[in-house]
């Protein structure tokens, strides 16, 4: 019987050894990072995300099932900037995995090379709401930061899995090229709408706004993480009317009742954009994220300007048909429902 066990354990050991050599197990905190890992790691990695794309990444529950994921991970990639501070540290401590402890080789803070906006320069207190002292953590919504994160990933994957360094370098170069092409299309799409004024629910969009020329003039939340109050909503409505703002951007995890009430008051439109890959089922890659959001945004701008001709939504002269440009370029078009710029829970 002993011989049987030894004889049968050899192939098992070999299979186990070859399995670990085949794929690195990567766990990321968000689906955006997972999408970027897929771009760079290809079939040399198997990647899983903890938070779903339609979930508020500030409020994830530290479920024990995530401990199991982390237990077997070779690499943990985090958004950083305190985005996961409320739930990730106990998961890492309980993972019983020394490879992914902060400071270890298998721990990567993706924000370290990214361009971070809204880093507070003065003294901050919680009277300002749930501010992030290390800057706004929603930095992946600028494709330039996606590239920087992908580069960090390429370096980290090559460090852990040196044998495949060439593979990761090729994948990164290919991603870089495709992203550059896509960025040209995206820029062309939004060029006619530069400087358009919008209101967002949470401060999730500074990088997106800076990259694509949106002017965020207000927030539905009076302060980050504080639910809207009647007084604030009244002020916001007056301000939106004064500036002629018609667009309200809302993340999928916020209640749309208040934004819709504001939209009714100012004769505007609520647009539900996806802050993350996986925010809608059709957003599967990092490219889909921008395709979807820009498509939605432009539809909304058009709908708003059709609703209120001669309003403050001024389009630049000589604008082409951006949606056609996108279709011509072969990029997947986001699904547009019938007048589907508003969203019902």
């Amino acid at each position: 019987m002993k011989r049987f066990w030894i004889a049968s354990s050899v192939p098992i050991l070999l299979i186990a050894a070859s399995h670990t050599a085949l794929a690195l197990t990567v766990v990321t905190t968000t689906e955006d990072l997972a999408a970027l890992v897929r771009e760079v790691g290809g079939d040399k990695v198997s990647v899983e995300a903890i938070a779903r794309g339609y979930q508020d990444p500030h409020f994830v529950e530290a479920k024990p099932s995530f401990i199991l994921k982390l237990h077997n991970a070779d690499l943990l990639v985090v958004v950083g900037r305190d985005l996961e501070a409320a739930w990730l540290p106990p998961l890492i401590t309980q993972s019983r995995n020394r490879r992914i402890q902060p400071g270890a080789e298998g721990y990567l803070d993706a924000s370290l090379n990214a361009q971070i906006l809204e880093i507070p320069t003065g003294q901050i207190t919680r009277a300002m709401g749930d501010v992030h002292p290390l800057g706004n953590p929603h930095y992946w919504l600028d494709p330039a930061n996606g590239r920087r994160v992908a580069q960090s990933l390429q370096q980290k994957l090559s460090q852990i899995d040196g044998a495949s360094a060439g593979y990761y370098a090729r994948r990164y170069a290919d991603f870089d090229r495709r992203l550059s092409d896509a960025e040209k299309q995206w820029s062309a799409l939004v060029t006619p709408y530069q400087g358009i004024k919008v209101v967002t629910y949470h401060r999730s969009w500074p990088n997106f706004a800076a990259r694509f020329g949106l002017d965020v003039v207000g927030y539905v939340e009076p302060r980050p993480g504080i639910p809207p109050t009647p007084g604030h909503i009244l002020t916001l409505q007056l301000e939106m009317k004064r500036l002629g703002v018609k667009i309200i951007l809302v993340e999928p995890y916020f209640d749309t009742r208040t934004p819709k009430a504001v939209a009714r008051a100012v004769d505007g439109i609520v647009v539900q954009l996806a802050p993350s890959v996986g925010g809608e089922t059709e957003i599967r890659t990092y490219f889909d994220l921008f395709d979807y959001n820009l498509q939605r945004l432009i539809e909304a701008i058009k709908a708003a300007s059709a609703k209120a001709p001669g309003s403050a939504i001024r389009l630049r002269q000589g604008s082409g048909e951006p949606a056609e440009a996108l279709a011509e370029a072969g990029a997947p078009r986001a699904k547009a429902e019938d007048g589907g710029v508003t969203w019902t829970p």
Partner: protein
Amino acid sequence: MSVRTPRAPGSVVGALLCLLVSSSASAQTPADQSVGAVRMEVERLRQEFEAIRQQYGARLSELETRLAALEGRAPQPAQAAPPPAAPAEAAVPPGAAGAGGPTGSLPLYGNVNLLSKIFNPDIAVIGDFEGASGNNAVNPQSPLSLEESELSLQAIVDPYARADIFFSFGPEGVEVEEGFVTFPTLPGGFLAKVGKMRASVGKVNAMHTHVLPWIDRPLVTENLVGADEGLSDAGISVSRLITNPWVFLEATGEVYRGQSEVFSSATRGDLTYVGRLRGYQDLSESSNVDIGVSVASGGSEFDPARKTTLFGVDATFRYRPLRRAIYRRFIARTEAIWSRRPVAPVGDTVRADSFGAYVSADYQVARRWFAGGRYDVSERALDASVRDRAGSVLLTFWPSEFSQIRGQFRRIRFGDAPAAHEFLFQFLFSIGAHGAHVF
């Protein structure tokens, strides 16, 4: 698979080879190591140089962009430029700095070298102000009191450990509520905690007061598991995941000095032992169940020759839809404890076998509002014939993540005293950086 006896020696050699191959990676000669070290050093320097080069490139291009903007030209999108490696300091857009807060440099309080503060632990204070009205002849609570101020100091010690210390300041004085060091990088998948801790007996015992879903602790805790202080003692806790393809399983073994509200040791060797097995399973992405079995055994104050034993089971069901996680959640929990405790001999009775349990549910009504209820039943630890029952309803309001206002109406039917009807209220407030709690 058939047993192939003649080939068995070959298999043994194969297995040994396998082991050798797998261990050869770590078994390098000193020469190999030094060459490797030099190579790594060169690689590190190369990477550092590359990073610095890219950093300066990025800064230069940023300056150029600003210059261009100043000259009135539209800044060129830096698409074709190589991605800068570390443009960590981004320009703060106007109006965004500190979310409307004052700008300027951080104030220096006495210490000129501000950087020395970086390694200070995370410090937080949680204030727990409680009030009570109504009648309670058995265990009357103060009408108004700052019941507890919990001071927490938490930090990573070194690459191998982190430390958490919680001081509890109450009307009776100061005590170390918990203070332990955790070793998360042990080999073999073990996680060890050393220090003074709340023992892993059931769910409620391990919870700090401010994370409880109620103002008070359930009667079963009051009667059988050491009241507010609970089973908290100096000891060592070791836990391990039992990996299997089906569920999350975690086994915990703990040994304590043996001096707590429930146990007492006459000699040094009279330690308290605690074991817990916890199973968890996701039912869907929104709902899950968490089930635990615990046992604790330690010395008795009445008879050093006999042991006090607690046996507990607990179950929690949670529902929280991911898309509406900040608006909606439902948690149902229950816990039962069986206590076998030696007592001073009364006739031929030398042991009290008591039982206690609670069932509780909380529902989040809106982003800031929670409603809940709890039913308690518990016999007394030293007299199982006296049974107390209680029912509570609760309403909780969260002004923000960092404060909480709660009201609880509680009715207790004591087994040996007139019933108590009370209204309790609580203000909780948290300042500083309090670390996240385990699930």
